[in-house]
């Protein structure tokens, strides 16, 4: 069992995250912090406060996607059976990991789950909109069997407190590093869960400690470029079925419209979208 935490220049948040990992009722075998070239003393803080935690410093800032790619590759090579992924602003409750593993144990008969996710909440207790679960509504029989066991069958999850089985990495590879940020988790978990099983375990809770309960279109700014670009890459790829592509495309258009409204139609917003469209068509899918 290895936790993989990706960080960049958020030393205090990371300290909070690592403290909570230390307090897990089910102890971790290892914690790996993937440092995306922090300049605020993050590696030094980790070495001083958490000497048992290993730090993998990347040669350049590879974003969340690159960080999880590198961290998972490292942890998989080291032989861990489960990889627990999270950002540095993820604060899992003390029994979050134990609950995830208990969820795995009570999963319906058949193929064991490849992925288990916590219920991700914001500080006010409601589900964080950035991490809203995507349930597998189009697999109603499997969904029903999961509910009978107190689990919710997923179609996608985010990289905020998600447990990935070694088998998932062996079958489906690693997250796509070139996504940089946003949609990388949607793509990767969608790849795994297209045929495999993954569940949200409601008793496992992780607080996503963002300043606001935001979404990509409200968080916005130039980073929205990645949402546009990566959404196009996703639509061009083979993770989604035809019907899912249709729905995801509609949803992306709505979010893009909301982004334009949030930015009051300013030229900079349109330029961000245009760059995202250009690169989403031009860049390689994998």
């Amino acid at each position, binding site marked *: 069992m290895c936790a993989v935490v990706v960080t960049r220049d958020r030393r205090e948040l990371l300290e909070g995250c690592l403290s909570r990992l230390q307090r897990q009722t089910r102890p971790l075998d290892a914690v790996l912090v993937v440092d995306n070239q922090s300049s605020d003393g993050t590696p030094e803080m980790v070495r001083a406060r958490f000497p048992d935690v290993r730090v993998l410093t990347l040669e350049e800032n590879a974003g969340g996607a690159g960080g999880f790619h590198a961290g998972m590759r490292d942890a998989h090579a080291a032989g861990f059976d489960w990889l627990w992924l999270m950002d540095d602003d993820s604060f899992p409750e003390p029994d979050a990991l134990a609950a995830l593993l208990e969820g795995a144990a009570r999963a319906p008969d058949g193929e064991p789950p490849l992925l288990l996710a916590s*219920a991700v909440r914001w500080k006010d207790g*409601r*589900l964080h909109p950035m991490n*809203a*679960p995507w*349930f597998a*509504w189009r697999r*109603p*029989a499997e*969904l*029903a*069997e999961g*509910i*009978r*066991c*107190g*689990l*919710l069958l997923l179609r996608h999850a985010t990289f905020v407190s998600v447990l990935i089985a070694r088998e998932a990495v062996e079958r489906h590879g690693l997250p796509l590093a070139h996504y940089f940020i946003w949609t990388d988790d949607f793509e990767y978990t969608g790849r795994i869960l297209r045929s495999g099983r993954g569940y*949200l375990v*409601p*008793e496992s809770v992780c607080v996503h400690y963002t300043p606001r309960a935001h979404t990509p279109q409200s968080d916005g700014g130039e980073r929205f470029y990645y949402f546009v670009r990566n959404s196009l890459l996703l639509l061009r790829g083979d993770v989604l079925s035809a019907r899912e592509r*249709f*729905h995801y495309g509609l949803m992306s258009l709505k979010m893009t419209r909301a982004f334009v409204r949030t930015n009051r139609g300013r030229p900079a917003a349109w330029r961000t979208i245009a760059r995202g469209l250009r690169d989403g068509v031009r860049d390689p899918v994998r």
Partner: protein
Amino acid sequence: MRIARTLAELAAAEDEEWILCLFGGAEPEPDALRRLQAHAAPLVAGAVRDGSGALVEAWLPKGTEVDPDRVVAAAPQRILPVVRATLAHTLVRGALLREHGPPDPRHGAHAADVWTARVLRDEPGVFVPAAVARIARAPRPEPGGPIATWRAARTGAWGRYEQMRRFQQSLTRRL
């Protein structure tokens, strides 16, 4: 409480406090009714399993409209809030019939779907997979005919994509 196996029997039962709908011929297991009655919702749907033990998928509640917060909150009780259901194995409060009227037989194969979408608009029902009824072999589901589908679509129970999908099924006769 009364058992209703057809739309006509359901319509005739509106004075009852509770009606157990068993459209399609399934028979509930001994503890199924107790499991359904354990939930304080106006409509509580159970599951139906065939002779092999598999869930009859065509008779499972479907729909994605429920707020994810409610879905996650209900999961530890091993239930799912639903806004549409079938009447294959469903406990219905008589007050729903008195308030909304019975399902419209002119909606054909869509009657249960349209009716439950209407009656559950203000308060979701509940799906209890542990409450099981059995049937040796479930009948093959049929899509609604084009006219019944058109009538059902006019009720506003479906979004545009769902309307298109149902019309396509009614015209191609394939689900």
